[in-house]
């Protein structure tokens, strides 16, 4: 089965992350699982790339971070849980509009529907 790799997702990763967080707060690995699940196993992200995207979103105030202290069954550094902010929700709505426009346009050009 053909997969969609990271290069094709460039420019969309931030909207994808916001979309994953719309389902509720999550840490990095959980965000990735949600994306893979939503992509029916066809998305092949370079997993390290998720974090720069999260840091950019955090710096822009679109997500905020809550630290989860190590508890029972988990040791090591505090885990960071990412949560969508109001600004992030607005950005997601805008991202969806942009995406719909992009799909319509590309469909007309590449899909030969025009």
């Amino acid at each position: 089965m053909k997969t969609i790799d990271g290069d094709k997702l460039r420019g969309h990763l931030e909207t994808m992350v916001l979309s994953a967080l719309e389902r509720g707060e999550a840490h990095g690995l959980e965000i990735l699982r949600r994306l893979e699940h939503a992509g029916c196993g066809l998305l092949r992200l370079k997993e390290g790339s998720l974090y720069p995207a999260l840091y950019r979103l955090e710096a822009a105030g679109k997500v905020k971070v809550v630290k989860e202290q190590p508890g029972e069954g988990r040791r090591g550094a505090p885990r960071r849980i990412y949560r969508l902010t109001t600004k992030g929700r607005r950005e997601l709505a805008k991202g969806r509009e942009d995406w719909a426009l992009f799909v319509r346009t590309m469909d007309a050009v590449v899909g030969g529907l025009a």
Partner: protein
Amino acid sequence: MNDSTERELMVIVERAVRPVRASVSRKRRMREELLEHLAAVFESEMEQNTDIQAGMERARRRFGDPAKLTEELQQAVPWWDRANYICDIARLEPGDSLIHFFARLAVMVMTIFFAVMLALWLVVLPAWIAEGKFGRETLFVATGIWIVGMFFVVFPFIFISVAKRTGRALYGEPGQRSKWLAVRWILAAMLVFLPLFFWTFAIFINTSGWGVAAFWFTCFLSLTFSLILLYFSRQSSDAQWANLELEN
């Protein structure tokens, strides 16, 4: 997961994070978060496979190219992160001693104080020149600024700079490590501290009897500062990560 496996995972993370130009706290966060993720990826790979090296290789592939990740991480560092250096100084980290913390805090507060004093002085100076007001008052302010500046800006600046370089020479990357280089940095620090201490105390005490005794006193002070510097150089290096050897 055993220590050697964790170390291998740390090396993968460190290859991406070490070249990033960012504050200590930001890089620490990157390291912690990426390591946790990579460890989880490795464990999930090991659930399907019993060969550690094959699991490690797959985890590495899923993680991505470190050079590319460095680039992406660097782009995610905001321009104001350099100001976070101040927050790093003022933050009480786990394992920090209170003396260490308050010393950093004092340096930061006095640096800000000195900057404000200097700015004020530069604002009033032109007016004082115009009024021909260059008497005892000006001299008093200038002496005050010199002393405050020396103790809380110049000394700490030299101290932190040399401590970092000594730390790198002692605990940095294997190729950069050199005990002789560390010794040379300590000697250089002593040679810089000595005249600075001497002149500063000479201005402060302002007596003719301040000769040989001052010399020995400042020798003692510069030696003490250099030894404290050695201690700080170890404290300031993130030894666990800094000691990782990144060669293939």
